């Protein structure tokens, strides 16, 4: 039995459900918006891990769940709880249910795409960069500092540089321009991450188990994810990667203890590849919708144990 957790209309979850239907695999959807009708109880003792999950009146043994696809949103912001005051019984139930569910997901045997703990590396880009380097992928030259002079020297050394958050929050990439020099003194209060701009073409690689799907993005903006918002464009198409890069992406994914990731690469005009980030909860539907790459099918096959 496969469990899909989240909101059924959310694109990635809906696409994986459709593919599971096509495969004929048995699954249940844990509709987060119906949390009031869900319950979970489990225990760990000398006999192992056991318990039950009740979804809208149907009770399942947790032992019968072999795989889980997790697309849960922050339960505090569920529309159903919008009118509920802090600490109301409905809010307490939602929090208690989600905590018990998430704690079980962390220790449940079987395939969980993805558990929360290994996703943590994405919260610190330079930390993740150090892990990425270990798997043989190049990363952009990076400087984190609170010293304006160090930034100016870094810029002189590398030419065009960009800046972005160190954490996973507000992670929009911006080019460092001449007008930014005047406000550079602000970094004395909170260090900032700068990187040498890597010229070339963005490539997003989705890795699921041993399968990879590479998508090339041609954009006239530095951060293609926000190209339209910035008045630019982004064109996506399927592409092939050299086998050594594919192998490194798979090894990196395994090394991070993740089953499904979106890896952001850039291919330089010289054919070199740089790795920027590993996204542990990829919203792959944008890429599949633009390229027809069968990513959802691969996720479904992985969950069903077919890969």
């Amino acid at each position, binding site marked *: 039995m496969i469990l899909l957790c989240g909101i059924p209309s959310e694109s990635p979850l809906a696409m994986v459900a459709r593919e599971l239907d096509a495969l004929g695999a048995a699954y249940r959807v844990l509709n987060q918006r119906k949390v009031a009708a869900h319950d979970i109880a489990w*225990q760990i003792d*000398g006999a192992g891990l056991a318990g039950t999950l009740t979804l809208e009146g149907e009770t399942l043994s947790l032992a019968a769940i072999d795989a889980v696809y997790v697309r849960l949103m922050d339960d505090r912001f569920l529309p159903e709880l919008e009118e509920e005051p802090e600490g109301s019984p409905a809010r307490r139930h939602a929090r208690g249910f989600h*905590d018990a569910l998430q704690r079980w997901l962390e220790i449940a045997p079987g395939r969980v795409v993805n558990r929360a703990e290994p996703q943590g*590396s994405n919260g*610190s880009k330079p930390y993740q960069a*150090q892990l990425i380097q270990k798997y043989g992928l190049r*990363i952009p030259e990076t*400087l984190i500092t609170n010293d304006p002079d160090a930034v100016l020297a870094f810029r002189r050394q590398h030419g065009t540089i960009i800046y972005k*958050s160190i954490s996973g929050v507000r992670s929009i990439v911006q080019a460092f321009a001449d007008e930014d020099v005047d406000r550079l003194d602000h970094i004395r209060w909170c260090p900032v991450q700068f990187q040498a701009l890597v010229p070339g073409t963005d490539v997003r690689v989705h890795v699921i188990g041993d399968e990879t799907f590479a998508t090339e993005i041609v954009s006239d903006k530095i951060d293609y994810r926000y190209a339209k918002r910035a008045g630019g464009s982004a064109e996506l198409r399927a592409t092939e990667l050299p086998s050594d890069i594919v192998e490194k992406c798979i090894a990196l994914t395994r090394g991070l203890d993740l089953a499904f990731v979106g890896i952001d690469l850039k291919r330089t005009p010289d054919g070199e590849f740089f790795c920027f980030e590993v996204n542990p909860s990829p919203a792959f539907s944008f890429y599949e919708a633009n390229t027809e790459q069968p990513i959802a099918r691969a996720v479904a096959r992985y969950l069903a144990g077919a890969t």
Partner: protein
Amino acid sequence: MVLVLCEEGDLAAAWAAERLRERSIEVDVVTGADLAAAGHLEHRIGVDGITFELALADGRQLSRARVHGMLNRLSFLPSAWVRRLGGPDRDYALQESYALYLSWLHAFEGPKLNAPTPQGLCGNWRHPSAWAALALQVDLPAKPYRQSSRDDPGVLWQGAMAPPPAAAYVVGERVVAEPPVQAFAAPCRRLAAAAGASLLGIDFAAGADGHWHFTGATVLPDLVRGGAPLADALAEVFRP
């Protein structure tokens, strides 16, 4: 030099630093207040490797080249730094600061007790359910753990306030256990390995039947209780 990172009032860190010095280990204690008051910071990652430099206000320089081991007692950002953050961007600044600390602490070479993780700067700060699962995995007898929708998640995080009736410590490959729980040395070692912790304090209590069982573990143990055997084990890890 072995870096001892701690909050200002961490008596266990001060005790450990003194015991390491007595055992001829060169130690530099850097507190959260030292870090909060530091000046120039540079952390580089690239094709030439990884560097980290921090100028402390008292003139000391903290750098990757100088540090050959670390007793890391900072579970989160230094309190003195957190107190400095305010305004509408406070949460963002906290996230950025944590991300930076995680990276520069990870960058140090040599033995780390403990290495930083995304779930805690001095090691993975696991939920009691995760410790119970690991105990089961390594055959360490433990009290049953139960959780359901009806539980208040905040209460589940609360640990025991009183010192445990018996404790064991894993330091690298060595186990320092108090007499009642010395028989558990092997599963304690396996627990630390499964938890990815080079330093782990493991708590035990006796049940009504008189048998000892695991009640919890911490990556920030009370080192003083371990006495000279624990100090010896710490020194062994850091000795060149």
